[in-house]
């Protein structure tokens, strides 16, 4: 039996992951629900003053999206490791890094895209000025895949361990500091009417680098953690 071509395998894996996610639609809604709940808590905690809310809106939305992604990252590889299909992927003739990249892409589509869709709604709940809205969406479009890629490497490292919840947060925090700084920095600059292209460009550069390096690192980490 000859192995299928690499693009065909990637497409098949992407289709499989998206189908699996679609069968469990409730799980896709969970991060969004979490983000909405946390956002509604903020005005209660600090007061409904529009000026104050507008000042912190950008940063709050980014941190909430980051936490929602962190929550969903935990089961990025878990199902595949439990039912043994991760071993099959690792034994497949196609490069593991590409297959892992497909899994991360599927995860981004199912977990982060819904968050990006609701993010403007959340931001307007916090009175973010409408002119900053496009910058918010652009920054999220660049920073969420970056976070998913970085997080996937760490999830892969914890794949063979017993507990991972808090540990994952502890390990992701140092990695996501620059992402949060640049993403929220772009938004703050846009709100103050300053040029916001530079931080967005830095985010893009980081994403380009992570797109190349993170799948390779993730594959290496999976091989270490699964001990093959």
């Amino acid at each position, binding site marked *: 039996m000859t192995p299928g071509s690499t693009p065909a395998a990637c497409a098949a894996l992407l289709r499989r992951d998206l189908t699996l996610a679609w069968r469990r639609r409730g799980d896709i809604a969970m991060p969004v629900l979490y983000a909405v709940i946390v956002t509604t808590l903020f005005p209660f905690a600090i007061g409904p003053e529009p000026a104050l809310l507008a000042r912190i809106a950008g940063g709050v939305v980014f941190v909430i999206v980051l936490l929602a992604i962190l929550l969903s990252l935990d089961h990025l590889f878990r199902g595949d490791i439990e039912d043994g299909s991760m071993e099959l992927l690792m034994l497949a003739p196609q490069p593991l890094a590409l297959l892992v990249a497909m899994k991360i892409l599927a995860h981004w589509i199912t977990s982060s895209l819904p968050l990006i869709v609701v993010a403007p709604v959340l931001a307007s709940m916090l009175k973010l000025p409408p002119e900053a809205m496009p910058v918010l969406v652009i920054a999220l479009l660049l920073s969420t895949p970056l976070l998913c890629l970085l997080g996937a490497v760490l999830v892969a490292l914890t794949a063979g361990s017993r507990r991972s919840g808090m540990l994952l947060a502890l390990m992701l925090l*140092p*990695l996501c500091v620059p992402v949060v700084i640049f993403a929220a920095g772009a938004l703050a600059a846009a709100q103050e009417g300053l040029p916001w292209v530079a931080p967005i460009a830095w985010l893009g550069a980081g994403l380009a680098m992570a797109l190349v390096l993170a799948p390779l690192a993730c594959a290496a980490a999976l091989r270490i953690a699964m*001990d093959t």
Partner: protein
Amino acid sequence: MANWVPLWLHRLGSPPVFYRFAGAVRPWAFGLALLLGAVALYGGLVVAPADYQQGDAYRIIFIHVPSAWMSLFIYGVMAVAAFIGLVWRIKIAEVVAMESAPVGAAFTLITLVTGSLWGKPMWGTWWTWDARLTSELVLLFIYLGIVGLYHSFEDRRQGARAAAFLVLVGAVNVPIVHFSVNWWNTLHQGSTIRLLGPSHIEASMLWPLLTMMLATKCYYIASLFARVRADLIASEGGKAWVRDIALGQPGNDPA
């Protein structure tokens, strides 16, 4: 000609040889650390004059700066050992990397605490989001993440290799964090505070500082070797040489 150096290093890669070597070196390194530390403290606290700007508060420098230096130095040693361990799968290198992390975390914690205690009288605040402080805090989180990841695995060897990978990821990350926080501060027009008051340091202040740096280096060697010995006892528990140590007279073996 100098063939014995690689040969000796090769022999040192064997756990029983390293265990004995570490046991022999540890008391000397610890004694030297105590001696140098005492000399440096005497020089720093008694001999060195008070700073004309900061008064006596600057004396925190004699533990703050050596600790800050060690927090980065230990990360460097750990990264090299982790790389060697991952590439050549040398067990001792993995153990050295993993047992360096708690010592590095200890020095990072000291740096943060003493820096905060120095900052309060000098800048009037316990904490400022300066690039150096933030990087040091992130470094502490990375150290804790490495220790946590190592201990979250059932299999020590597997945990060591996963955590060694995290060490290398962190090595890439720390400069990026430092750069981005720098950028962030200039955007936010952060308070421009120079971390060190005296711009050029006098000789009577310099020699205790350098002695203390040597003392912390010796301390690191002593602490690392004690940790490696404890780790080897646990991970090599089934081997004959550990059994001999366990069943031999425990009094003969200095703890």
